[in-house]
Every structure is written in C-alpha cells, then in structure tokens.
C-alpha cells in the first residue's frame, strides 16, 4: 500500500532523516501511531487510504508539500481548496503533496506521551520532514490548531526561530487576507487563488534547493517576496502611535513591495479540479462531489468578505461543469453533486445546466443541490429541476436582514414581497420546510430591525398555509452575529457588543413565539454573541494579537470553532493579560469604530479594491443607498479589474449538455 521504506521503528521521533542527504527515505510513523488508535475516538480519520489519496515515492521528487486544513478531519477532508491544490501539485512529476489535519485532544495527548509527531494521513510521514507546510484558513478560529500542529511537528512556533531544517509555513485561504494576528507564526502568506501560486512557489523552492540552498531560509523568503504576490511578514516592520493605532507598515529591506497583491486564476475551464475527489472512509460533513461553477461575486453585499476579495466573476462553462460532474461521479461513487459558488443562481447558464444535469441523472439516484441562494422565485424553479430525481434537498435562502431598511444598508436588495412570494412558491412546489438565514448586529441596526424577522417569519407561514391549504408548512430562522471583516465596506464598523446581540436574539425568540399558532411552525436556531466577538478580535487584529493567541493555546485552547471546545473566558483572560501593555484591549479591536484616516492592519495587502471606493461604499451603506452588480450594469469602479489586470469572465456559451453515452 504505502510506498515508504520502513527503517527501524525504534528510532526516536526527533531523529528525523538528515535533510542534507536526500537519498535517505523518511520513515513513516505508522508503527508508533497504530497502537494508540484503539484508544482514541474515531480512529479511522487518522488512517488514510481514502480513494483519491496519492502516495508518491519520497525520493523521486524535488519538492514536498504538506497541506493542512486546521480543523478536524471530518471538516477538513471535503474542503475544496485543499483538494484542488493537492491534485495540482501531485500532477507535477517533480513534486509531491500530502495532507494533514488537526488531531483531536485525545490523540494529541497520546502523541506527546509517546513521542509521535504531527503526520500526514497519506503515508504517515512526519510533517516536519516536508519542504513546505501550506495551511488553508477558511476561518480565523483555526489559529490555535495551527499552533498545535506546529508544536507536534517539532517546528518552532515563531518564524524567527526556524532554521533550514524546518518547513516553510505558508498560509492561504480567505483569512490570509489579514494574517497579521498569526504573522509571527508564519513564514509567508498567499492571498487569493492558490493554483498558480503553489506552482510558482514550488519552482522557486526547487531552484533554491538545486543551487545548494544559497543564503539559507532568509534568501528563499526574499525570492518569494520579490514575486510581489507572496507576503513575508518578517520583511515588514509595524510602527505604532502612542494611542495604540498603527502608524505604518513598511518593508525593512529593498526589493520587497510596499503592498502585496492577491492572485486571480483566470479561465477556470483550464483548471478543472478536483478530477479525482477524495472519498473518505470516515464520516465527514459533506459527502458529495462538489464543483465550483464559478468564482467571485459582484452582488456587492457589504458584509461579505468572500464576495469582495474574490472579484471578478469567472465562470466555468456549462460543458466543463458537465464533464467534471460526469468524471467526478465515476471516480468517486458519490450520489450527491453540489454546484458551488457564492451565488449559484447567478451563473449565466444555470438554467440549462440544471435541466441538463437533471436530465442526465434522472432515475439514477443521484441528487443535485445548490447551496443557499438569493431570495428569488427563479431559484425555486431551479431547485425543482434538480429534485426531479426524486431526492429533494433542503431549500435555504439568505435574506440576512429583517427590515427593508437594513437590507439596503447591507446592499441585499430584496423586497418583502419578493421574499414571501419566493417562499410560497417553494411551499406550493412541494417543499414543506424552508430555511432562512439572518444576521444580528449589522451596522445601524436597531431592535426593531431584528423584530421584523419575526414578522417576516409569521407572514411566511401565514401566506404558505393559505397558498397550500394546509398547516403543514415550516420555516427555520437561523441567525448569527455579524463580524466586520477586512477588505469590505464594513471594515471600519464597530462590531455589535455580545450583550446587545444576545438581547436582540432573545427579543426575537419571544416575538416569534408571541403568536402560538404561527410560532409552532417556526424553528429558531441561533449562535451566542460571545464567540463572534473573539472572531472579531482575530479577523481585524494586528500583530499584537499573536501573543493573545499563543497564550490561549498554552492554556489549552483548541478547536475554537467547536462549541464544546471554545472557551470565551480563556480568550478574555488572555487578552486582559497581554494587551494592556500596548494600551489596547478586546473592545478596542472589536466594538470600536475606525475612521478613514486610520491605518488598518491589512492595508499593505492588496485585494485590488480601491480604498476610496470602499470608504464611499461604507458611506453609501450608512445612507441606505443600493449598488448594482457590474455583470449586468455599468462598472462602478471598485478598482479590482484595472489594478489586477483581470476581467469578468462569464457566458453564456449557448451550448447544452448532451445526454451521457452509455458505457
């Protein structure tokens, strides 16, 4: 199975293969790991052997990547970003990539006790033996898990303490657009699409190794920084003003750019990954073949970091999507397909795509789904097409705001009439249950805006009952606290304090249940305000927050995205211990409004968005002015396309999906 030569298994884990001698194989830690597995929960997640896993010969390649999703296997394995990079790298003959995930605390304790290092699941090789450790951060709440992985791998937590024997630790993913809180722990960060970035980085590392590693780690990092699209924190100094704000962030050596640019992969039809999806043996949060039907979004919802930082829109053509689905299903055996994007119904060929796929898979027990969509009756028609196979997946809409006023503030333009009409269409088309997502704590929000959600929900049920002639219609209101994010028009906003959020959530619950008959048909799911405050600290934090993260980790913080593991008190205590010496505190990072003159911790990282445009959009939000989508109305100069030399890539191609020829 694994193509790794076993050396004696009694060698201690610190005695890794000599990095200079590339002819020596790196030992697998499996013999030391296996006896621990019967003692931990869900051992299969650490075993590997998934369909689609690739184990290449260690000595046959020049550059070796360990790719990490810093959460449990069940969450990390389905992640598209890691799967895409895994395939792109392994397709290169001179490169290999393996995967690693966060281990649960029960195994962490045993690994420390028995000297077993952080390992890849593909071949159980120690992560410390790789050239690069690429970590994909979809959320900031994975930061403590990063520290655990580094520590278990024997990699010094601080970048400055690492030497030539340690892997380069590189961050990617949406949270990498402000990596300052973990800047001390990272060697580098990549902003934006990773496909071309990882190949470019691989080329640089390969040349540096082949030349005998001239200048050591520092020189390698310099070469990466000079590409102007790899951010190397140690080459930037941060100066602070007496009141705690940042004065400036500047390069501390020549050849390093003042601003680091994001990357954009154009022409996604040329990158049809994943081709061989990973099919886990363990149970994971998604068990489907997922295909990104497009990247980017220009609807301009002002809270949405993902939309702001992934511009412009680049679609995959209907024929490429059809081919990817066909091969992906054949290679995996999944019985569900997800057509993913930030707003799938906006794809220029979505109608033909859905009916074409529904035609192909009718009667084959394959179910097709779209993620949560805009509130649009058209989306119900699409969902109908997709559920022709008989399997009806849930319908979810995201109005986000309860009142029309607040929806104008966030630029999510849907009238109450549209909302009711859409949900009623869903009910009359056969759905009995609809989920509605909302946020609490949006800028300018009042109690009244949140109470409107109850009124909306009541109206939805009332209209649904009337239209279907039955009382058997339900909706679930799902609501969480809003966290302002970097590179959005709300990046200057004051985050709503948890007490206010919790108060409004409580009022909402009462209001929903104030009408017993209607309230009975409405489910209510919510998240408390406190974890969101910590997310806020991390999302708009600067380098000083790194010490807070470290302290939380040292006192046992792990898996902060999981309710069972997250401890608000631990974060509050760490912040209180660390931040006063800088004259700042938790509230300073979260509930404080910034003004236009303040240097933000991520200003030196360029998402392409013009900061004047962003500020103007923030002012428009406060004035309740709406903004349209540039795919269908004239460009409004957000700045991305000219500064990044990119363009909108959408169809329609006018093609249709042909039926599959039977084998």
């Amino acid at each position, binding site marked *: 199975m694994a193509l790794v030569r076993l050396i004696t298994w009694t060698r201690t884990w610190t005695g890794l293969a000599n990095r200079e001698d590339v002819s020596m194989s790196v030992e697998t830690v499996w013999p030391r790991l*296996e006896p621990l597995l019967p003692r931990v929960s869900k051992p299969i997640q650490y075993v590997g052997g998934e369909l689609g896993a690739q184990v290449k010969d260690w000595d046959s390649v020049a550059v070796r990547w360990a790719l990490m999703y810093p959460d449990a296997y069940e969450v990390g394995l389905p992640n598209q970003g890691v799967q895409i990079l895994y395939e792109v790298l392994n397709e290169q003959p001179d490169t290999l990539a393996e995967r690693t995930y966060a281990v649960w605390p029960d195994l962490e304790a045993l690994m420390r006790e028995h000297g077993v290092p952080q390992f890849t699941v593909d071949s159980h090789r120690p992560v410390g033996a790789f050239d690069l450790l690429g970590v994909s951060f979809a959320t900031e709440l994975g930061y403590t898990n990063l520290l655990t992985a580094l520590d278990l791998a024997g990699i010094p937590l601080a970048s400055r303490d690492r030497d030539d024997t340690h892997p380069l630790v590189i961050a990617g993913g949406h949270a990498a657009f402000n990596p300052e809180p973990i800047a001390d722990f990272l060697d580098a960060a990549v902003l934006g699409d990773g496909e071309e970035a990882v190949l470019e980085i691989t080329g640089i590392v390969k040349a540096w190794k082949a030349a005998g590693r001239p200048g050591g780690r520092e020189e390698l990092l310099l070469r990466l920084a000079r590409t102007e699209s790899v951010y190397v924190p140690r080459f930037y100094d941060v100066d602070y003003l007496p009141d705690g704000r940042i004065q400036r962030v500047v390069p501390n050596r020549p050849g390093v750019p003042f601003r680091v640019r994001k990357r954009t992969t154009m022409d996604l039809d040329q990158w049809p990954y994943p081709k061989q999806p990973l099919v886990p043996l363990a149970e994971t949060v998604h068990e489907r073949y997922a295909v990104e039907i497009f990247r980017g979004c220009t609807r301009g919802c002002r809270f949405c970091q993902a939309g702001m930082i992934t511009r412009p829109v680049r679609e995959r053509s209907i024929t490429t999507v059809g081919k990817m689905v066909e091969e992906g299903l*054949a290679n995996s055996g999944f019985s569900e397909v997800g057509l993913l994007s930030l707003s799938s119904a906006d794809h220029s060929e979505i109608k033909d795509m859905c009916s074409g796929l529904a035609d192909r898979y009718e009667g084959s027990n394959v179910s097709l789904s779209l993620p949560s969509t805009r509130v649009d009756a058209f989306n119900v028609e699409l969902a109908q097409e997709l559920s022709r196979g008989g399997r009806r997946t849930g319908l979810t809409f995201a109005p986000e705001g309860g009142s029309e006023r607040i929806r104008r503030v966030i630029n999510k333009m849907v009238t109450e009439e549209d909302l009711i009409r859409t949900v009623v269409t869903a009910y009359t088309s056969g759905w009995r249950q609809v989920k509605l997502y909302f946020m609490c704590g949006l800028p300018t929000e009042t109690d009244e805006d949140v109470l409107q959600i109850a009124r909306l929900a009541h109206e939805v049920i009332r209209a649904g009952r009337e239209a279907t002639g039955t009382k058997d219609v339900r909706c679930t209101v799902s609501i969480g606290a809003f966290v302002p994010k970097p590179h959005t028009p709300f990046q200057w906003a004051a985050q709503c304090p948890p007490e206010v959020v919790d108060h409004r959530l409580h009022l909402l619950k009462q209001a929903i249940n104030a009408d017993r008959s209607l309230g009975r048909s409405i489910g209510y799911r919510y998240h408390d305000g406190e974890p969101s405050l910590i997310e806020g600290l991390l999302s708009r934090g600067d380098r000083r927050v790194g010490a807070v993260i470290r302290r939380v980790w040292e006192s046992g913080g792990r898996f902060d995205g999981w309710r069972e593991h997250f401890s608000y008190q631990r974060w509050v205590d760490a912040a209180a211990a660390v931040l006063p010496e800088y004259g700042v505190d938790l509230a300073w990072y979260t509930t404080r409004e910034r003004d236009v003159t303040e240097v933000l911790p991520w200003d030196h990282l360029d998402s392409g968005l013009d900061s004047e445009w962003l500020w103007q959009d923030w002012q428009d939000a406060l004035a309740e002015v709406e903004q349209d989508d540039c795919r269908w109305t004239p460009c409004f100069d957000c700045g991305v396309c000219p500064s990044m030399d990119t363009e909108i890539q959408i169809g329609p191609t006018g093609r249709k999906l042909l039926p599959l020829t039977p084998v």
Partner: protein
Amino acid sequence: MVARVRLRYAKRGRMRFTSHRDFARAFERALRRAGVPVAYSQGFTPHPRISYASAAPTGVASEAEYLELGLQAPMPPAELARALDEVLSPGLDVQEAVAVPPGAGSLADRLEASRWQIELPGLEREPLARAVAAFEAADQVPVERLTKQGWRTLDARAAVVTIRVSTEPVTGATLGEPSGVAGVPCAILDCVVRQVTPAVRPDDVLSGLRVVAGLEPPVPPRVTRLAQGPLTTRGEILDPLAVDRDGTPAESVG
C-alpha cells in the same frame, strides 16, 4: 428485485479501524463505481437493498464478514465480486460471492459462532496458558461491559466453545501487515465464541481472563475474526455460504 447475491469480504490491516457504518458508506459508493445493478427500496429516500449480518466491532480485523445484496438486473456473482474488489480500497477485500437460490434461509441465522484470533504483544505464552486453563475450568466468568445504559454484567464463559493458546498466528500475506516487532514476545489466543444476546465479544473474553487470572496485557490487543458460520458439535465453524453455493453443507472453515 430480480436476484440476490451473498458475499464474504475481509477487513484487513488498517481497514480494521473503519466502523460498520464507514464500511457501509464505502460499499455503497463502490457499488456505483463498479456499476453493480443494485436494487433500491421504494419511498422518499430510496436505499440500496443491502443487508448486513453481524458486523465486527470497530478496531477488529476480519477475514469473514457477510452481506446480502438485492439486484435489479442479473450479474454473474464472480464478476460482481471482482468488480467490487477492484474499486474498494485495499484492505477492504471482497473474497467471494454466491447467488442466493430461491427459498434459501436467512444468512444471519447461519452465523451461529465466530472464531477469533487475539494477538497479545508483550505477553509471554506461559501466563496466557495459565489464564486460559483457569477460564476453561470455571463454570461462570462474570465480566462487566460499559453500555449506553451504564455498566452491565454478563457471563463470558457460557458462550465460549473452545479457547486455547495458538502456536502460530494466521498472519502474513493473508492478513496484511505483520503485527509483531522482532524481539518482542506475542502470545496468541484462539477462541470460538457462540453468537448470543447480549453478544460476548473478544474484549469480554479478555476481561474474563483478567477476572479469573489477573491477566493484564501491556498494550491493546490485535483482534481478527477468522471465520463465522454454523457451529458443529465438535466446535468447528462451517462455511455459511456452502448451502447456497452448491446445495450441500461444506467442510469446516474454522
């Protein structure tokens, strides 16, 4: 549903860490990839017609797990077995498939007993042999097992048909990776246990050895189910698929 097929599969090496549900999911996907024409149930969420028979606990390897498939179109059993084995992960190995003749009895009913091999690294032969002797001599051996409803006592002795110290492990190519490390002793227990309710599992037998003789293995054991099927009066296990395959009861398989 047009035909039924029964098959025997193995869980080897690292695959012993899959739970039964993990296997079931992997198997359903394998059916799709192999193009097996499995029949589906009716209703809002059709399931493939697969019925499993007494699955091994998570962490236990096996040479003899059984399931039955309903097909909506005919497929020769040998071809089915080969196609499935090809698409399943190495370590989840389909060993054989037989067509189920009309009127055949229930598969689960034929699985009267299992033969287990329990490897105990770090344990010498002598202490194990003494413990086995004490266990055999006892009339009852009460052990405790933790269930969802709390601790429960059961008699480990009654269900055990034969128990002895093995001379040679059934290991090597058939069972995947070698378990032992050179120089470390590894005593091996071999036992045949009747399928009863509540089930007496291999770790209950080990608990029993601890109760009667204070036997404490230093590291977790490696357990493998070697066979399961009808039980003869001599304590041998027969092939449960023999009757379906050729209409006559088979020779012993364990």
